[in-house]
C-alpha cells in the first residue's frame, strides 16, 4: 500500500463513525420521509399506499396548515428584526473598549442560551399565568387586569411566546455579532478618522459592510431556527387556544404523532424545507453575500 493510499485510508477511518451515523440517522430518515410524503402511511403498521402528490395538495387546502403557515411567518417576521436589532446594538456597545464589566454583560446576555428551552418555557408559563409576574406588575401600575393567563387568550398567546423567544435568543447572536466586530481591523477606523469620517459614516461605511458575512450568517440561522419553532409551542400552549399558536413544525408533529398521519406529516416537513430554502436564498441575494 502506498503512503498516499494509507493516509487516505486512515482519514477515511477517522470519518467513518460520523459517516455511519449520518447515513443511518440523517440521510436514511431524510430519504424515507421524502418517500412517505407521497404515501398514505400511519406509522403504526407497515401498510403504505402510494397516493402521489395528494398530501401536498391537501396541505394547501387544509385550514389548520394555512393558519400554522401564517402564524409561522408572523413569528419569523415579528421576532427576527427585534432579535437581530437588539443583538446588533448590544454587540456594538460591548465592542466599546472603554466599557467596564464587558465580560459580565457578555455572560449575562449569553445565559439564556445555555438554559434548556423547555426550562425557559416553564419559567415563562408561570410569569404569564393569571397571578404571574406580568399581571402583578400591571396591577401595581394601576391597570385593570383580568385574571387570565396570557397564554390562554387568542390575542396574546402568540405575541407572548414571541416576546419570550426574543429574550431567550438575542444573547446568542450578541456573541456572534460581537465576534464579527472583533475581526474588523482597527486600522480601518484610524484611517477613516484621519480622513475626517463621522461615527455615523464609520458605522455605515465600515462596520456594517465588514459585518455583512456575519450578519448574513446570523440572519440565516435565526430564520431557520424561527421557522422551526417547536419546543416553546409544545411546552407552553400545544398550539392553542384555537390554533392561535399553531406553527408548521408543531402541526407536523401533531399530524404525525397524534393523528397517525405520517405521510401527510412528511409532506408538511418537505414544504417547510422548500420554504426555508427559498427564504434563505432571498436573504442571500438581498445581502449579496458570498457565503
Amino acid at each position: 500500500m502506498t503512503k498516499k493510499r494509507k493516509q487516505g485510508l486512515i482519514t477515511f477511518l477517522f470519518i467513518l463513525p460520523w459517516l455511519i451515523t449520518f447515513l443511518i440517522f440523517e440521510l436514511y430518515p431524510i430519504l424515507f420521509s421524502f418517500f412517505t410524503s407521497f404515501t398514505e402511511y400511519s406509522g403504526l403498521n407497515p401498510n403504505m399506499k402510494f397516493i402521489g402528490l395528494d398530501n401536498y395538495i391537501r396541505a394547501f387546502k387544509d385550514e389548520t396548515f394555512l393558519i400554522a403557515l401564517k402564524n409561522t411567518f408572523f413569528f419569523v417576521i415579528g421576532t427576527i428584526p427585534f432579535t437581530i436589532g437588539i443583538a446588533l446594538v448590544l454587540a456594538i456597545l460591548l465592542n466599546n473598549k472603554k466599557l467596564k464589566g464587558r465580560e459580565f454583560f457578555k455572560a449575562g446576555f449569553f445565559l439564556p442560551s445555555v438554559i434548556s428551552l423547555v426550562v425557559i418555557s416553564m419559567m415563562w408559563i408561570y410569569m404569564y399565568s393569571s397571578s404571574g409576574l406580568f399581571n402583578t406588575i400591571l396591577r401595581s401600575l394601576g391597570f385593570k387586569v383580568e385574571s387570565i393567563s396570557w397564554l390562554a387568550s387568542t390575542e396574546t398567546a402568540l405575541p407572548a411566546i414571541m416576546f419570550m423567544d426574543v429574550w431567550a435568543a438575542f444573547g446568542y447572536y450578541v456573541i456572534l455579532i460581537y465576534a464579527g466586530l472583533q475581526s474588523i481591523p482597527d486600522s480601518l477606523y484610524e484611517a477613516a478618522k484621519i480622513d475626517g469620517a463621522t461615527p455615523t459614516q464609520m458605522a455605515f461605511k465600515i462596520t456594517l459592510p465588514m459585518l455583512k458575512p456575519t450578519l448574513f450568517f446570523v440572519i440565516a440561522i435565526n430564520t431557520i431556527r424561527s421557522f422551526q419553532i417547536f419546543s416553546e409551542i409544545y411546552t407552553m400552549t400545544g398550539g392553542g387556544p384555537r390554533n392561535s399558536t399553531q406553527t408548521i413544525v408543531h402541526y407536523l408533529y401533531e399530524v404525525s404523532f397524534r393523528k397517525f398521519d405520517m405521510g401527510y406529516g412528511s409532506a408538511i416537513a418537505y414544504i417547510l424545507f422548500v420554504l426555508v430554502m427559498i427564504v434563505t436564498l432571498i436573504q442571500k441575494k438581498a445581502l449579496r453575500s458570498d457565503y
Partner: protein
Amino acid sequence: MKKGFFIALILLMSVFVFSKTKLVFWEFMMKDDTAKVVIDEFERENPDIEVDYVQLSWATGFDKIVTAFAANSAPDILELGNTWVANFANEGVIDDLSFLKDDFSNIIGWKSAEFDGKYYGVPWLLGTRAMYYNVDLFIKAGLDPENPPQTWDELLNAVKKIDALGEDIYGFGMGVGEPQTPWQEWFLPAVWGNEGNILSEDLNTSLMTSQSVKEAAYMYQELSKYSLKSKSADLMMAFGEGKIGLWIAAGGNINKLNSTYPDTNYFVTFLPKPSQNKGFHASFAGGEILTIPSSSKNKEAAKKFIEFLVRPEITMKITKRVPTIFPSNVLAESDPWFDDHILESIFFEQNATAVPVPPHPKWVDIQFELSEAIEEIVMEYSDVDKTLEKYNKRIQTILDKNKQ
C-alpha cells in the same frame, strides 16, 4: 477437551432449565416504588416470569409508544389511555381481548376499551372529574354549602351570586387554551347528562346541531360570562387562592390543593345534571386500559399478569399512592381507605355515572374540532347555532373519510 465439552453442555442445559419468560410492561400510572412492590409480588407468585418494567411519562409516553409500534418493538403489555384505544385497535396493532370479559365480572368501564363491538383491552384504573366548590365563598354569597348545586339552573344561580362578590372573584373556573379541557371537564359530560351525544350510535353522523348539544352549548356560553377562563394550572391556582366559586376538575387536585393551599376551605360534589327530572350526573370517564400488542410473543404470560394487575388489592395499592385514579374492580369499594378519604370516595362514586368518549379511531381529530368550537362559543361569544353548524360540517367531514 471432553471436560470442556461437558461444562459447556451443562451450562447450555441450565440456561434452558432456568430461563424465565420475560414480560415487557409499559405503563404511566404507577410510581417506581409502587411498581416494585406490585411486580415483586407477581414474580413471587409466578417464579417462571420476569417483568421488565418501563414507566412512561404523560409528556412523552405517547410518542414513545407510537415510535415503538413503528419500529415493531412494542412491549408485551401496554397501558393505554382510554381515548387512544380505538385508534390503535383500528390500526390492528393491539389484540382483541373480548374473550376475557366474562372472566372479569367485577370489572366496570368496559365501554372505555370498546371498538367496533369488540374489547381491545381490560379496564384497569378509572379516573373522572367532580365539582370542587369553595365553602367560604358559598357562605359569603348566601348559599348553603351543605346543598351544593345539583342541576344546571342551581349551578348558574350559584355562579352568578359568587361572581357578584367582587372584581377578582369568579363564579366558575372554565378550562380553555388546552387540547382537552374545553370539552373534557364539563361540556361533553353536559351533553351526555342531557341524554345526547356528539356522534351517532354507529359513529357515522355528527350530532353537533342536535337539541341536547345546543342546550349544553347555550348553558356553557351563559356560564362563561361569570367564569375565569384559563388553563388548568391557572384555574387550580385561582381556586386555591379563593378566587373561584366552583370548578370541575380531576381528583389529582385534592392533594395539590391540600399541600399548596391548606387554608382553602373547599368540598367536592357530583357534576350537575340538566334538571331534577331530566338526565343524569354525567362526567368524563378517563381510564387506563391494559392492552396486549399484537406483536407480543408472550401472550399467555401477559394475560396472567393482567389478571393479577386488576385484582382489587393491587389496584388499591396504586390508588393509595396516586389518589387520582380508582380501581375498575368494584370489589375495591369495601376497602376501609375510602372511609378516611371522603373527597376521593366522591370521585370513586362519580365513576359510576362517568361516560367514555365515542370509540372513534379519529377521536383525536374530532376533539381538536370540538375544543375549537367550544372556545369560539365561550371566548368570543359567537353565535351558538352558527358555530355548531360550522363544526358539525367539519366533524362530519372527518367521519365521512373514515366511515365505520
